[in-house]
């Protein structure tokens, strides 16, 4: 992965920059010592590491605004960072840029049960929001696996999902308002406790923009009442085709479960060995289907799904009869990543989405790729919405294996695009999938995305080197080559 060549002029300014930052953020909020900066050198994509120029941890919106103005004035790049759990390198530092950490923005500002929303600072963890409102029976719906650590600001930047987004949506469907600081230092408020934008939906645009457009300093989220109950089915199938048909049949019957997860044989065995969840070991595919809502509805739908699973050839079928049993069904799935980590020195987690019916074809070709590269792959899959998480097993201490794993991963993502899917379902493009963007988008498509970036950050100071494979100067993107021409399609009727 090639990052843009560091700007020597920026690096040469380091001492002066640190002084200026200390004038804005006094005390320990500016971290310039190499040992202390070390914790910021990578995010959840640990294969990539880079020491930043300096780390700054502001505590107020005014400080964020002053820092961004300073960086624009000095032509210094800025990498915003929440908890650093990104799996795509979204918070990977730049040698010639600062890390702008939002960790000190960790306060819950307002909880409004009457209007079913909460306003929080971006450094509050995803789970922290749900915990803060749990006493009144409310929660925040999106639940990425890293929810104990990841922050809501990072969730907004990445448009994070989770196992329940089939029914409840992604981050973008669950936030109502943002406060965001532009590179100019201007502070904008988008949305609030009301619904829908009064103009262009910039809140929707910023969600999932991976820190390239602005720095989020406040988030208003929608709160939901906790469902009365939740029950799960644990279904074993003799083939992934049968499991896939079962998912399709459930949805065709008009049932949208809160979540449907699939695991393949390798993932089942790894998870079972790791935490003894009671998974059947003689099946090729395992489904966990969870129904939540009013008790009467869940009991009714559990029966319906049971019938569908039987007619789709489930060879093992269990229904949770208690909360403890439901959690046990989930325990293996939730531990799938560490479980795979135990059977292999390293693993590389991919994140493509495919049209669900293409699953058997994709799994077959993934098996072929697996033997081609000589690397094993275990699959966990958000089956309801087609989001694949292949885990490629490798050993970073073996020379060349990391590169092989990355090539294998890239082939999987190309395959996802080829069958009508996309490069990333919820982890973001970051640096990881940056160079694959052209498999999904034309140059025209990408240039238009970059023009939108130019509307926010014309000099490209915010998180450069992420998302876009080729960086163009905004002036160059703005040019148009259209000459005066003929009236369009003279052959067509006019009215």
């Amino acid at each position: 992965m090639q990052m843009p060549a560091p700007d020597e002029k920026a690096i040469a300014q380091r001492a002066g920059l640190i002084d200026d930052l200390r004038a804005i953020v006094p005390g320990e909020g500016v971290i310039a010592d190499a040992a202390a900066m070390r914790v910021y050198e990578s995010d959840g994509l640990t294969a990539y590491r880079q020491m930043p120029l300096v780390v700054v941890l502001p505590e107020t919106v005014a400080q964020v605004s002053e820092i961004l103005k300073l960086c624009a004035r000095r032509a210094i790049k800025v990498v915003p960072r929440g908890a650093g759990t990104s799996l795509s390198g979204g918070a990977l530092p730049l040698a010639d840029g600062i890390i702008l950490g939002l960790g000190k923005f960790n306060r819950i500002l307002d909880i409004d049960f009457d209007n079913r929303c909460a306003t929080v600072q971006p450094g509050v963890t995803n789970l922290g929001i749900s915990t803060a409102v749990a006493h009144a029976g409310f929660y925040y719906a999106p639940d990425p696996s890293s929810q104990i650590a990841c922050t809501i600001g990072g969730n907004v930047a990445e448009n994070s999902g989770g196992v329940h987004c089939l029914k409840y949506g992604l981050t973008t469907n669950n936030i109502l308002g943002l406060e965001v600081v532009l590179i100019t230092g201007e502070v904008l408020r988008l949305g609030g406790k009301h619904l829908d934008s009064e103009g262009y939906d910039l809140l929707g645009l910023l969600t999932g923009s991976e820190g390239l457009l602005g720095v989020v300093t406040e988030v208003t989220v929608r709160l939901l009442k906790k469902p009365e109950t939740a029950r799960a089915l644990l279904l074993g199938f003799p083939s992934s085709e049968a499991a896939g048909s079962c998912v399709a049949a459930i949805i065709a019957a008009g049932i949208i479960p809160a979540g449907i997860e699939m695991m393949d044989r390798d993932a089942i065995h790894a998870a079972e060995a790791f935490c003894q969840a009671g998974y059947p070991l003689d099946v090729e595919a395992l489904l966990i289907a969870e129904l939540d809502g009013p008790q009467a509805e869940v009991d009714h739908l559990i029966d319906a799904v049971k019938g569908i699973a039987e007619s789709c050839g489930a060879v093992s079928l269990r229904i949770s009869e208690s909360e403890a049993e439901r959690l046990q069904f989930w325990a293996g799935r939730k531990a799938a990543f560490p479980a795979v980590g135990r059977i292999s020195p390293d693993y590389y987690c991919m994140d493509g989405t495919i049209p669900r019916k293409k699953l058997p074809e994709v799994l077959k070709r993934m098996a072929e790729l697996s033997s081609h590269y000589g690397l094993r792959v275990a699959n966990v899959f958000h089956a309801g919405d087609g989001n694949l998480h292949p885990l490629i097993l490798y050993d970073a201490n073996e020379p060349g294996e990391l590169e092989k794993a990355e090539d294998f991963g890239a082939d999987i993502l190309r395959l996802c695009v080829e069958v009508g899917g996309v490069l990333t379902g919820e982890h973001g493009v970051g640096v990881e999938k940056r160079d694959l963007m052209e498999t999904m988008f034309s140059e025209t498509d990408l240039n238009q995305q970059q023009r939108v970036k130019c509307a926010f950050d014309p000099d490209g100071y915010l998180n450069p080197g992420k998302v876009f494979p080729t960086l163009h100067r905004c002036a160059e993107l703005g040019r148009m080559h259209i000459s005066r021409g003929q009236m369009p399609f003279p052959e067509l009727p006019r009215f």
Partner: protein
Amino acid sequence: MPETWRPENADQVTEAVRWAVGEETPVDLLGAGSKAGLGYPGQAAHRIDLSGLAGINLYEPDELVLSAMAGTPLAEIEGLLRQNRQQLAFEPPDFGPLYGGAPDKQTLGGVLAANLAGPRRIKAGAARDHFLGVHAVTGRGELIKSGGRVVKNVTGYDLCKLLAGSHGTLAAMTEVTVKVLPAPEKTRTVLVFGLDDETAVRALSQAGGSPHEVSGLAHLPPEAAARSAVGYVRDAGAAVTAIRVEGPGPSVEHRCNALKTELGGFGAVEELHSHNTAALWREIRDVKPLLGLDGTALWKLSVTPMRGPAMLANLPGARLYDWAGGLIWLAAPPDTDGQAIRAAIGAEGHATLVRADDAVRQAATIFQPQPEALAALTARVKNSFDPHRVLNRGRMYREL
């Protein structure tokens, strides 16, 4: 009359926009033209009628996805979905009659361009939440795509969100992909009678904060209730507060009974069954109870749900509350000053003048005015798609 072109494919749309760019002359975009009354009146000498880009290209019910040309009539799409017991869950309103036209004319592209959503907005989201992918011709005359056909997708900026609600000022959509969802097996409505507006939004807040997964929370003050086509509502002789419950049969019965008990303290309660329920929520969706009030200007207010009644206390005009009070339709006297409405809302929402006589529209500020920095960013975003401002120039903001 402006000259109208009716392209039949994306290349012809591109050609038309390029011509406009070359001439630096604006063109107005329209689908079926059913919402031409929304925004400032079109001024361009040329129009591109996108209704020729019609047809459903892909519909896979068990993948919950549908792609269609942007000019496809919504009625055709909803008809096909109904056959498969599915729906567009955001419940797109039909504003044809609101603007004095016929019902069932609008196109899917038009619904998305205006980001319209009905009562189920509170549970299922708006049009923008169901808009998965797009092909569109920008104001630079370039055909671009964004998004895809899968729900879970964070690859690149979400330009669908930007195009939803942009009223054709950024790009001419040619083909769109939307998420579809199962239609509910059963629908019922709990009615509470005789509540004043303040009490009603409290009742709605309580129902919305219950675990009963309500999918509609509306309040019809006496004047609106009296204009309902549903007998139970019209003949109540009082305000009617409505709470909708959808889902499998046993679940709906259970939740309706629970809501009747929980809301019984607010006033007399009644239950509406399928047929009347459908009629009531359709008329709320389409603002029917406030139509035909002669000489009024219709405002759409999006506000903090519980704050609406207090904000509007000193403003005249009939009103209808949806989205738990977060959406207020106000049929105001035509001389109502938009500034007074916006001052009442303050920073807790926004107001749009949805329908008024041409003279009133010309003089009014139709969309919520933006603070300086936001207005400047809006202009830069517009320019990034449409630097010569050829597409629907002046539709949302006079200078854009």
